[in-house]
């Protein structure tokens, strides 16, 4: 990629594209937008530093994820990728609620068809009436963060699995 045809990064930065240019494999000259957008958000020197710290076989994936994040940040200058994460977490929560409803419906139908299915009162002590598996949001905890994308909206209590930073990002 180096030599006669400078890569997209060296073209944008107006410098000679060395043979061992760290950007060249990932920012071909035929896609100048790709480098332009990561440069706008992260800056060329930060990208170079990041790539140097990553094994070569993982750099392509790293660049792809940086491009994705940069695009998200340009599209949504306030929330960037975090807006997408919040939206997806909402979707997961809704799906798991629907899952719990479906499980409850099955149990209701089974009880109607055969009242013997209904557990005896002594079983309530150890088992819930609604048989939900451990993947349902009722028992399952996911937390990436507790984020309020739009001020004034009800804060979405994200599902909790793992607390990344252990603090609440509501501003």
């Amino acid at each position: 990629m180096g030599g006669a045809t400078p890569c997209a990064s060296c073209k944008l930065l107006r410098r000679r594209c060395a043979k061992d240019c760290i950007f060249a494999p990932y920012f071909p000259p035929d896609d100048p937008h790709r480098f332009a957008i990561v440069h706008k958000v992260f800056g060329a020197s930060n990208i170079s530093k990041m790539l140097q710290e990553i094994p070569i076989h993982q750099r392509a994936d790293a660049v792809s994820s940086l491009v994705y994040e940069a695009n998200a940040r340009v599209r949504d200058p306030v929330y960037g990728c975090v807006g997408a994460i919040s939206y997806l977490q909402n979707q997961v929560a809704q799906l798991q609620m629907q899952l719990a409803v479906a499980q409850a419906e099955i149990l209701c139908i089974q009880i109607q068809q055969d009242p013997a299915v209904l557990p005896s009162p002594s079983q309530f002590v150890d088992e819930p009436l609604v048989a939900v598996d451990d993947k349902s949001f009722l028992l399952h905890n996911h937390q990436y963060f507790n984020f309020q994308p739009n001020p004034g909206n009800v804060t979405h209590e994200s599902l909790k699995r793992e607390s990344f930073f252990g603090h609440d990002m509501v501003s």
Partner: protein
Amino acid sequence: MSSSATGTSRCAACRNQRRRCPTDCIFSPHFPSTDPERFDAVHRIYGASKVAKMLEEIPPEMRGPAANALHFEAKCRIRDPVYGCVGIISTLNEEIRDTGTELAKLRARVAFLASGAQERQLGQDYTIVDDHWTEQQQIGNVVL
């Protein structure tokens, strides 16, 4: 957290950059000196000037959420240098796909069980009619 022009309470950004913290410092409301790690993270990934530029392009009332989001993304990137917060998006997409599949299966089961319940109910109704016919025959009435 406001900063003072005398520099006695500089924000985390100005401390990091070793400069005076002006009263209108764009960083100081969002990167207080009490949390130096917060600015360190964004500085490491984006750099001070990029962060300043991004914040300047956003209305003041939205800079808080923007700073939070930048901090979150920076922490994700530090934690996972290859995928950053895109790894979380991937995981969530997988979870949505798996949960959606499970939900579709459960709904199919609900439909199946519900249709079975209807048939059983119809079967009971026919039994009542049959009992009625049998009774009429015993009485001697001809029921057509």
